[in-house]
């Protein structure tokens, strides 16, 4: 039995870090609790940044609610720079050393920068991840732009495109793949969202990439596509994915790379030799963990719901004593996106899905729930403007129920299984 912790350090003061702090206190941890954050802000919520914050609705202050009795010491604008596993100490940029009995690593991800540094440095070229990014981009969007060019076929690209159309700004969205959002939603649903985007006035270009950018006086003026077309623009947003913040763990002995920080089923960080790093846990976007809903395949889930759930599991296990009292992280991945007036929700993981069945509504109504099958089992379900029906499919996904879930049911006689 390990001794109960007296000092807990959380590196990463965002959604996962704050959720862990709340969970630790709720579970009775009364010792010293320190949250270390690289950014200068209190923990804040990111999903509104690409939507209502850019659009200028309500306040841009998305600081997350914090319990008045949290009694945590916050260190903002203070990136952790080194981890000494043997000495159980985290070192920060200012040279301060934070000893811990338990450590939670929740350093998350950052926006993948545009690969050409000279182009990335042009005024008018943006990425969007942090609150400061949203503030800068939002201010730029309010300057009567000629055209916004968005690069990336994921949810951030589509959400920003939607916001730009709400603001009546012309938008070109460049997607490298043949179908947008296919990685998360599959080609059928991704195609539907692409269709809606086009109707709302987005100039959506599929299988399209930038060859180079043009600038004048350090400002972006145009992009040249691989097919030679030149598009004049004064604003480009590169929404081309994320990089995990693991560099500070170099040399620590933990198993961390571009794929994330490897942890076991109980959110315990693993060393490069495969052993558990005593007292060290991980949660959120940075953690790479064995997913029980996918035969323990390793996954890093960069979603809001996982950040909270994994932080709560890690917090419980930090206080559990020995491994026999720990619980495994078995969160079913879920997320939502709001764009073009639609709400898209997903539970489960669609990767490798080989079949899709619309189980409520229809593509025609643009209001539906679709279940995804993989090898005859239900692995995910997606809803478009049908959130109330979605939770009903969680059990089928958790239990990997036969797919399609209700074929030839009395009330659903016409379910048609199709390609995803």
């Amino acid at each position, binding site marked *: 039995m390990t001794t109960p912790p007296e000092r807990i350090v959380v590196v990463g003061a965002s959604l996962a870090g704050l959720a862990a702090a709340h969970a630790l206190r709720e579970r009775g941890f009364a010792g010293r609790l320190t949250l270390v954050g690289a950014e200068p802000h209190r923990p804040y919520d990111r999903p509104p940044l690409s939507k209502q914050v850019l659009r200028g609705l309500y306040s841009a202050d998305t600081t*997350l609610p914090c319990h008045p009795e949290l009694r945590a010491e916050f260190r903002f604008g203070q990136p952790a720079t080194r981890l000494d596993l043997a000495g159980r100490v985290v070192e920060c940029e200012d040279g301060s050393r934070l000893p811990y009995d338990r450590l939670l690593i929740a350093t998350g991800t950052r926006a993948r920068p545009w690969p050409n540094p000279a182009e990335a440095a042009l005024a008018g070229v943006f990425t969007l991840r942090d609150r400061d990014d949203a503030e800068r981009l939002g201010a730029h969007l309010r300057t009567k732009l000629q055209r916004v060019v968005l690069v990336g076929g994921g949810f951030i690209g589509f959400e920003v495109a939607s916001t730009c159309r709400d603001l009546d700004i012309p938008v070109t969205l460049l997607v490298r793949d043949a179908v947008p959002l296919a990685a998360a939603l599959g080609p059928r649903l991704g195609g539907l969202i692409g269709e809606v985007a086009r109707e709302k006035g987005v100039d959506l270009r599929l299988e399209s990439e930038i060859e180079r950018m043009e600038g004048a006086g350090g400002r972006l003026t145009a992009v040249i596509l691989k097919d030679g077309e030149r598009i004049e623009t004064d604003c480009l947003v590169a929404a081309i994915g994320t990089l995990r913040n693991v560099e500070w763990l170099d040399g620590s002995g933990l198993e961390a790379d571009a794929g994330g920080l490897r942890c076991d089923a109980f959110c315990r960080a693993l060393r490069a030799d495969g052993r558990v790093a005593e007292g060290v846990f991980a949660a959120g976007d940075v953690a790479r963990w064995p997913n029980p809903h996918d035969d323990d395949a390793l996954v890093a889930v960069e979603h809001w719901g996982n950040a909270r759930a994994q932080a709560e599991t890690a917090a419980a296990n930090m206080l559990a004593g020995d491994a026999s009292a720990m619980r495994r992280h078995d969160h079913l991945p879920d997320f939502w996106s709001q764009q073009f007036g639609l709400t898209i929700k997903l539970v489960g993981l669609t990767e490798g899905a080989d079949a899709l069945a619309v189980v409520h509504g229809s593509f025609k109504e643009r209001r539906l729930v679709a279940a995804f099958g993989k090898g005859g089992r239900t692995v995910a379900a997606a809803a478009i403007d049908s959130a*109330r029906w979605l939770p009903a499919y969680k059990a089928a996904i958790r239990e990997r129920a036969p797919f399609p879930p209700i074929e030839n049911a009395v009330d659903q006689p016409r379910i048609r299984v199709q390609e995803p």
Partner: protein
Amino acid sequence: MKVVVDLNRCQAYAQCIYAAPGHFALHGREALVYDPSPDETARGAIERAIHACPVRAITAYPDAADATAGEAR
């Protein structure tokens, strides 16, 4: 105060919109948008929204007393 809504949980029952008009709104059929940082004077309305939400998706706390740091213990 500070407000966050778990939009995985939200099912657009829209009760918050009646309880705290001006702080919550639907864009389209189900896309909930809300004020993450309403004035302290809205506390009563926000609390009504929290209790009205049938899926318990809303969390709110007062603004932190010290906006920059708080010492533990």
